[in-house]
């Protein structure tokens, strides 16, 4: 039996209106919790962008001169590989460096386009030491500063480390709060639907009596929960976009730490995060109303 679309929409709309205060409460909870989820994901993305070079335990980078000969490059590489304090070495070609540069500055096209060819960028060795002792790492790195063909050796700064730790803690805290609120949002939606079911118990009784199918009775209520989740997620999406713009403006005005210069999130990151929020919102709404419908509808 086909569900009549106009019937379902009419019933859903009247339910949403009838329980306005409860609907509003669940909506706000969905918005706040999903905004927090969005913020947490954007923090993670931002830190990843800001510290791209330092991922996977890379502690120092040996930059070669752009005009270093292949022999010089190989010599440094071999020496690094033979060094007992070094766990892993990875070579970054000019093309790799160019790609990384393009990626790093993709939201500042003016700056990015200053480097239009891989040739003027240095090649480099990315080194993961076998020890975590900063003094040993410092010593190992310094050995290569004076080698022929080496331009400079860059160490992971304490600030990067600090940023990692702080952002991880912040992100985890925000995620926990978001999860708690998300559960609250689900419970609020569940109660909204329960109230809607109670308000319409006479109609439901008649529907059962004349032989309306269980799904026919359920669908308007489930749709109601889904819509609450969807609208809430939509608003959270908007909040996330605005939040990101504000942070980016601040960063560009130079009011923040130098390290945060790279702390940006591209448009596509924001929108994929937003899509995820929509999916989570719809899921929470549907699960909440689904539980209410199976527990309180008795069909």
């Amino acid at each position, binding site marked *: 039996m086909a569900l009549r679309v106009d019937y379902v929409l009419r019933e859903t709309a009247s339910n949403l209106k009838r329980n306005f205060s409860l609907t509003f409460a669940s909506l706000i909870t969905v918005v706040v919790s999903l905004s927090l989820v969005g913020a947490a994901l954007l923090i993670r993305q931002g830190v990843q962008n800001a510290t791209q070079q330092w991922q996977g335990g890379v502690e120092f980078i040996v930059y070669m001169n752009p005009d270093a000969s292949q022999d010089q490059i190989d010599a440094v590489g071999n020496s690094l590989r033979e060094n007992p304090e070094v766990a892993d070495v990875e070579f970054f070609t000019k093309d790799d460096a160019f790609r990384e540069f393009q990626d790093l500055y993709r939201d500042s096209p003016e700056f990015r386009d200053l480097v239009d060819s891989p040739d003027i960028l240095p090649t480099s060795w990315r080194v993961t030491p076998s020890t975590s002792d900063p003094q040993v790492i410092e010593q190992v790195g310094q050995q290569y500063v004076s080698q022929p063909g080496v331009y400079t050796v860059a160490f992971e700064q304490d600030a990067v480390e600090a940023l990692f730790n702080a952002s991880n803690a912040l992100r985890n805290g925000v995620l926990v709060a978001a999860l708690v609120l998300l559960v609250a949002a689900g419970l609020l939606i569940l109660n909204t639907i329960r109230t809607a079911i109670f308000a319409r118990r006479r109609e439901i009784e008649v529907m059962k009596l004349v*032989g309306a199918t269980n799904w026919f009775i359920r669908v308007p209520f489930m749709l109601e929960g889904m819509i609450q989740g969807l609208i809430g997620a939509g608003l959270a999406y908007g909040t996330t976009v605005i939040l990101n713009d504000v942070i980016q403006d601040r960063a560009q005005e130079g009011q923040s730490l130098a390290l945060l210069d790279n702390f940006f999130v591209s448009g596509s990151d924001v929108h994929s995060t937003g899509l995820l929020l929509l999916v989570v919102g719809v899921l929470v709404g549907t699960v909440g109303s689904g539980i209410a419908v199976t527990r309180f509808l008795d069909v």
Partner: protein
Amino acid sequence: MIRLENVTKTYKGDVHALRDASADIQKGEFVFLVGPSGSGKSTFIRLLNKEERPDRGRIWVAGKDIDTLSSWKVPYLRRNIGCIFQDYKLLANKTVYENVAFALEVIGRPKHVIRTQVPAILELVGLAKKERNRPHELSGGEQQRVSIARAFVNRPLILLADEPTGNLDPTTSVGIMRLLEKINATGTTVVMATHDRSIVDTMRKRVIELDRGTIVRDQIRGVYA
């Protein structure tokens, strides 16, 4: 059309609502269920609708063993059964027309069917002029006629009536019974639980008498007691 075989139904605390009851009701019959309050009349009716399940025994309705009927098929069973009650169960925020149309709407009947069927059934029960009124603007007899229209608009095979005249004065009750007879004359099987001695005695239909859950009498052209 309806068949009960050794049906027993017990509620909490060893209350026997129905005890080893057997009956066979043919298509097109008009049957009164009589007996004092608590004798099991309502349980009898609720079992036929699968609102309750028997503890023991088997029940066939419209050719189907309803105990083995899977739960998603129950709505389709109920489309073959119209129900009316002492308290009418009308929706207060809907007009007479909307109350009747609702029954067709929620089983997915198309709009053009609703537009032709609802006025026809309101004509049949004599309420064509009141289709825009709400239930509280109607008398008890009129409200019961709306509920009969709602129960019959889908042309069910069976009409179950649980004390339909319980809240009505004797004159109005006669009108309601005329209407049920008219519906019965179209071939619909009618099963009616009642306390009303004068109705049973004047109509002289088949009477099934229940006493504390047991069928104590099943009489063609019977009287109340």
